[in-house]
């Protein structure tokens, strides 16, 4: 849909907060007619799905790995390194990725100097969804380890000993003791992630929107930003934001219900 036409359909200007003449559900109708809204919706869900598959298991795996390290000192050192990127700003993380994987980045530079073709992952719409997932893994997978490590340290060590005495090997102990201990935490995090299905790294993606183009990178939040802030069409954008809020609330409630039905704790209980 052409945004020049959208612009100014419902001109509410900042400062003019307050009762405005109602337009019924017109803003919602316009929103649903905008094909870019549905594209953004589809992008959002597919990024969420990719991250559930490729991001979610990483902290669990890292925690299991770290937990098997015997030396406290070594484990502490690795933990310090793992948590660090979580505290970097998205601007910094993306500049770092750009310098490593971008067209003028280290990898392309090394390839070229050895006579290969260079490439630019940062502007390639085809790999964008995986790129943002990789950035998320780099920044936050280490931080995600904290909660699993805490759950692991709460496991009663006698269980391992009993299992070992009964003849369970390393892998069977992991399967029958460690993973069940992690199950409530995993369920909880899954519930929260599904409840947040419509939220995928707003700042992160907005920073790269220009380089990649909106086709691959437009997600729910950036769409709201684009329509509302960049094109000052507040009515439609606010309708989009509201839909997201309601939809997310419903998703959390459903996911929580499912967790309860599977016998897990979930986020809350009545």
């Amino acid at each position, binding site marked *: 849909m052409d945004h020049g036409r959208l612009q100014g359909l419902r001109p509410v200007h900042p400062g003019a907060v307050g009762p405005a003449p109602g337009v019924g559900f017109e803003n919602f109708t316009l929103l649903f007619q905008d094909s870019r809204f549905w594209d953004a919706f589809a992008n959002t869900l597919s990024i969420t799905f990719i991250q559930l598959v490729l991001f979610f298991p990483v902290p669990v795996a890292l925690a299991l790995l770290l937990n098997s390290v015997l030396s406290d000192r070594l484990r502490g050192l690795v933990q310090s390194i793992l948590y660090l990127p979580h505290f970097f700003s998205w601007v*910094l993380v993306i500049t770092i990725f750009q310098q490593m994987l971008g067209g003028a*980045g280290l990898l392309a530079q090394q390839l070229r100097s050895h006579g290969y073709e260079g490439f630019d992952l940062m502007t390639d719409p085809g790999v964008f969804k995986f790129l943002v997932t990789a950035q998320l893994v780099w920044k936050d997978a280490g931080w995600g380890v904290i909660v699993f*490590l*805490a759950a692991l*340290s709460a496991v009663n060590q006698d269980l391992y000993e009993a299992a070992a005495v009964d003849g369970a090997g390393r892998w069977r102990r992991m399967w029958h003791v460690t993973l069940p201990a992690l199950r409530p*935490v995993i369920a909880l995090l899954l519930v929260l992630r599904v409840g947040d299905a419509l939220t995928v790294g707003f700042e992160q993606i907005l920073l790269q929107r220009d380089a990649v183009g909106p086709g691959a990178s437009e997600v729910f939040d950036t769409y*709201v930003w684009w329509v509302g*802030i960049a094109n000052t069409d507040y009515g439609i954008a606010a309708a989009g934001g509201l839909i*997201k*809020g309601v939809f997310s609330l419903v998703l959390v409630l459903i996911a929580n219900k499912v967790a309860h039905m599977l016998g897990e704790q979930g986020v809350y209980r009545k």
Partner: protein
Amino acid sequence: MTVTERPAARAATPSGELLRRRGREKRPVWEEEPGKVGQGIKGITLTGVCLAILGPLWVVVVTSLSDQKTITEAGGLVIVPKTITFRAYTELLSGGTVTRATLVSLALTAVGTAISTAVSVLCAYGLSRSGSFLHRPILMLLLVTMFFNAGLIPTYLLVTGVGLEGSYWSMILPSAISVFNVLVLRAFFQDTAPELVDSARIDGAGEWRILFQIVMPLSRAVIAVVSLFYAVGYWSQWFNAMLYLNDQQMWPLQMILRQLVIKQQAPQGMSQMISTQQIPSLAVQMAVMVLALIPVAVLYPFVQKHFTKGMLIGAVKG
């Protein structure tokens, strides 16, 4: 704070007691010795993970310290340092756009963190005393915002509507309180030695005195972690600056970094320095990145040991 932290803290662990690492340096007798191959794979994986995090940082720092000759020879980014020069930094920090932006960011972080921490501690303390004024409704109100929000546009209209556009307060007030941090503090305050609080009260201490002289000193670790989160949040902010600060002269460092490296444009007042090649532009970019990284790297070690405690204890009870 990003979304991913929320689950981290809410994840339940039975009690603080169990959080302590078991600190077993020795392998228990019943555990079989690990195979050579397994150990090898483990070692390689851990080393690889650490290198993936530290490697890029190394390259950025080294390039920022290199002179033009080294950068040209390397064909861009430098992996092995040959000469060390601080020219990029002295140029950037001897006045001008980047100096100003760095000071702006430092000031915003200091003022914002102070305000946020103070307000959060007060709010959390009030909510931690059951029976305080409107205790339940206020708590509910806070909780609702964790599950539902109307989105970007109403926030934007509100902030501009009350006239904060173009003011540094637009970088502080909209994000002054993180409900999540308040809940962490509240849970912690609820747990701090009730018998101490009771005896102080019998001795005639008022609420302020109890807060400042008993509860806060006992909660130093968790307050440190919460302050770190706030500080990192303010230091990392760029989106609010983009929304509300139209004047480039007012921009914080992250906005300059975005302009310079992501958009590959020289911010106002820097174009001359780069076009006249006073300093190699790649080193300048890297130096700005390092500037954005330094405060985090400096603060991090002091607070790091409290993470698990601050993130997990009590947060369960929300």
